[in-house]
């Protein structure tokens, strides 16, 4: 094995309207690792995740997946990632079960949708339209995707927002199980994470402004 790292990012740059948002980020994500992206508001945490999930095109730099340039193994890479963003990608008029079934229909997951909903504490809510659920419950529906996915790399953008204590614990357990099973997680959060194998990467805010 030449390269044990799952994801390597070299000198990644991103500019929005000629203003640099990410200026030469270098990081690696290894198997079995949880990487927490830190940084003040506006330092480009979400942007970084969106670039790594190929939703945004970087202005420069390279991204390697298992030592291969991303554009050469795009299908392979995209089949192996999961992205949970600020926006939960839930259809509010659909029920929790329907929401999960269309996002995950392609995955022969080990956990059924009903089991997943039960594990996130939404037993008995599977046929309630999502707009009747509370914010935190909707978040839990979105997080239930973590249980039904087979993806290797998870990108979680602020996964703890709107969650109560048990919810946070649940996400932590999910991440722990995932990295023990050979996966990797990259997440952004302002909350301290109460678990062990977390590595941190700090994004410095862009050089403009910087009034604090």
């Amino acid at each position: 094995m030449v390269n044990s790292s799952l994801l390597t990012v070299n000198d990644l740059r991103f500019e929005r309207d000629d203003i640099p948002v990410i200026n030469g980020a270098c990081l690696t994500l290894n198997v079995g690792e949880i990487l927490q992206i830190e940084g003040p508001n506006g330092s480009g945490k979400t942007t970084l995740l969106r670039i790594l999930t190929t939703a945004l095109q970087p202005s420069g730099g390279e991204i390697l997946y298992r030592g291969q340039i991303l554009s050469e193994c795009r299908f392979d890479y995209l089949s192996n990632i999961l992205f949970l963003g600020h926006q939960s990608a839930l259809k509010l008029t659909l029920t929790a079960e329907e929401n999960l079934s269309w996002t995950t229909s392609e995955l022969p997951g080990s956990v059924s949708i009903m089991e997943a909903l039960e594990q996130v504490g939404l037993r008995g809510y599977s046929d309630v339209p999502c707009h009747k659920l509370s914010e935190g419950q909707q978040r839990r529906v979105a997080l239930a995707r973590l249980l039904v996915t087979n993806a290797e790399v998870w990108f979680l953008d602020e996964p703890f927002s709107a969650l109560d204590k048990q919810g946070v614990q649940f996400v932590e357990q999910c991440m722990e199980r995932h990295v023990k099973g050979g996966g990797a997680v990259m997440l952004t959060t302002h909350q301290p994470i109460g678990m062990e194998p977390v590595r941190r990467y700090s994004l410095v805010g862009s050089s403009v402004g910087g009034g604090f």
Partner: protein
Amino acid sequence: MPESNRGFSAYFRRDLLLAYRRRGEVASPIIFFVMVATLIPLGITPEADSLKELAPGTIWVMALLATLLSAEGLFVSDYKDGSLEQLLISPNMLVMPIFGKVTAHWITTGLPLTLASPLIGLMLSLPSVAYLPMMAGLALGTGCLSFLAAIGAALTVSLQKGSLLLTLIVMPLYMPIIIFGSAVMQYSIDGMAWSGPLAILGAMLAVAIALCPLAIAAVLRLITIN
């Protein structure tokens, strides 16, 4: 290819289910179509001879406006709730899910418009020979309208108030469809063979099915990548 089929059917079924859940919203363009057509005999003239002249153009203009009314929401809600982003980062081809979405849009607008059109034909005292050509033309023509409107909807997806711009972008593209669509009806009213313009409508639909999903996929990538 089972992979691409799944992309089509997953989004096709999801959009139909979404439309079913908000039936009232989906029905309003059809109600608009019927109501505006009712105003023509009231506002212009109830005389059968003059109405017969107006009917083809009126029906097609109404069908066009009704499709535009419903097209704006085609990608906007997906864009806002993040499911468009999930679609864009999925490993499979974008074209099939988009094809599924546009087909679902046609089933919820073009098809009901086609089925409601005899009612309008009755109000505009359309001669009975023109009913079949009208429905055949609308079935094919509204398919083209849905595909073209979807390009406009994709172009304006990130705008706050995109509906007017969407109309301005799409309207010129609608012109050939409206010309041949009303020609189908006019020919049948005049007692001529109407299969010619109908075949052209069919050809336009075939081209739209082949090319529009590609254009929409390219536009969505371009718009969300910035």
